[in-house]
């Protein structure tokens, strides 16, 4: 049984407590004070020193119905109650209301992990909790895991030279504690637990949201449909994966190698024949 995260983006409030808790517990350095202008996201991406990253997606209504700075104007009739049950807008602008999506992104700890398969030193392993872990005493910083990750999670540290990513708080798990981000999350958007149990919770949550009108709610990475298999960190999303910066159908890069080796073999035979013919013609 593997442990992992269920990240329910529908209750994420973008407080970034997960980012802070992760940095604190794992003693990760700060990344500077750059302002991106991209909503409240000044972290931008996961990386060697950022193992949780909250994305902010502002989806504006096509026609703003509330005139700016005119606070006395009547609010548009947002159809938020149907027979006493609250109904949330499924598309921005559908009821004239903008939508603000937030998601706490993290290493997916894939069942078939590209980084793990790429690693030539065996530094990247699957630990006793079923999670993908980089052993810092083995990693020699070759960097091959970096482009092998279909989610752009792993990164080489420029200062340190080695590859780093979320450990799913291996140290805390060993002591029976939940990871720092899940512990800090005030809305339980990040839930830690056994994957099978988390999936039950997640499926119930999707049903609940669907029944309340969030017809776009679905689980990302909670099944075996893609090459990377079940993600030990899976998500409940409210829009297409691309909107959150996630690939719709993440590939396992090593699946390409077989055809590459076959092409190599074929090329070797052809090239060998050409060279052999070229030299045998020179025989007198």
């Amino acid at each position, binding site marked *: 049984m593997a442990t992992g995260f269920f990240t329910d983006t529908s209750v994420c409030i973008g407080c970034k407590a997960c980012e802070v808790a992760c940095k604190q517990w794992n003693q990760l350095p700060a990344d500077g004070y750059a302002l991106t202008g991209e909503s409240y996201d000044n972290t931008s991406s996961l990386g060697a020193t950022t193992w949780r990253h909250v994305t902010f997606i502002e989806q504006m209504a096509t026609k703003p119905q509330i005139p700016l700075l005119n606070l006395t104007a009547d609010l548009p009739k947002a159809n938020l109650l149907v027979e006493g049950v609250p109904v949330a807008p499924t598309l921005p602008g559908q009821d004239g209301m903008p939508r603000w999506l937030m998601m706490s992104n993290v290493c997916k700890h894939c069942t078939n992990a590209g980084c793990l398969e790429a690693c*030539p030193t065996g530094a990247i392993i699957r630990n006793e909790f079923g999670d993908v872990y980089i052993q810092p005493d083995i990693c020699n910083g*070759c960097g091959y895991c970096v482009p092998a990750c279909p989610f*752009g999670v792993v990164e080489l540290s420029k200062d340190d030279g080695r590859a780093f990513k979320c450990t799913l708080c291996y140290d805390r798990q060993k002591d029976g504690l939940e990871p720092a981000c899940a512990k800090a999350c005030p809305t339980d958007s990040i839930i830690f637990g056994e994957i099978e149990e988390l999936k039950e919770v997640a499926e119930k949550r999707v049903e609940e949201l669907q029944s309340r009108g969030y017809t776009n709610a679905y689980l990302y990475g909670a099944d075996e449909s893609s090459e990377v298999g079940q993600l030990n960190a899976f998500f409940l999303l409210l829009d297409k994966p*691309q909107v959150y*910066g996630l690939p719709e159908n993440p590939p396992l890069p090593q699946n390409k*190698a077989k055809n590459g080796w076959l092409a*190599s073999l*074929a090329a070797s035979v052809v090239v060998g024949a050409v*060279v052999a013919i070229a*030299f045998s013609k020179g025989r007198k």
Partner: protein
Amino acid sequence: MKSVEEFATYYNRPVLKKPHWVWQIWLYFWLGGIGAGCAIISMLAKLFGDQKRVKPIVRAARYISLATGMASPLLLVMDLGRPERFLHMLRILKLRSPLSVGTYIMSANGLFGNLTIARQLVEDGFIPAKSLLGKAATLVPDGLGTGLQGITGFGMGTYTGVLISATAVPLWSEATEILPPLFLSSGLSNAAAALQLVLLASGLDEDTTDFKALETIETAAILTELALLGFGRWKMGALLTKPLTEGRVGKLFLGGAVGGGMVLPLLLQRVSRARWIRFIGAVATLAGGLTMRYCIVEGGKLSADDPQAYHSITRK
């Protein structure tokens, strides 16, 4: 051709992380390819060629392999984030990891290269034949050493293509059937050019060595490269191949690698057989080979940074 579809992205931020690889890697791809080409050429020259006239080719190939074989591991170790841990590569063999397999291919190729160069050094009088070292150097039969170096040479010439195509980078991963043959052909054309350069500089002519064979190999390899690139462009379409057709890298690729490194040498071969023209042609092929490796590595980084390209290959 794939249809062009606009995907929603997260502030147009890259979805993937690009590799950190800089000059060590593209220089190694180029040198390793030349070493591989030399190993293949010397094996097949010995097997099929006119023994007297291929002797200088085999000799030059072994010295070039020595140079590339010494530089390659140094470049790769330099590139590591923790160079002192380079031996960790050999603590495990993972058949699913082209980098792990490649490490062993390179190690084996280097080891067998040592056998052939040791014999060559004895033959050339650098190591006294009667000394203990000289006797040890000629212990393994010539044919066995040359054969093993040649066979691992095929792996050496192709594995780098498999290595980069087994990533999530669109430009590389969609070219998994193209890159290994392309790299092998490029290594071969460059090895043939390097050998011609050395043999021309040594003042040899058609009677003393088989220049014709080297020219045939170079021409055939360059034509193969052009065909593979054309096929790649047709198969992958404009969006995925954009890094190699547009911008700084694209200009360098089309002008330098394809124009200067493939088309120009082919034209020069047709124009004249004068010594200096052949010299220029060989230099152009070599410069083009290096430029191609540079552009493919740098183009891969641009491709990794392009969320549109990645989303287009990962849609359901």
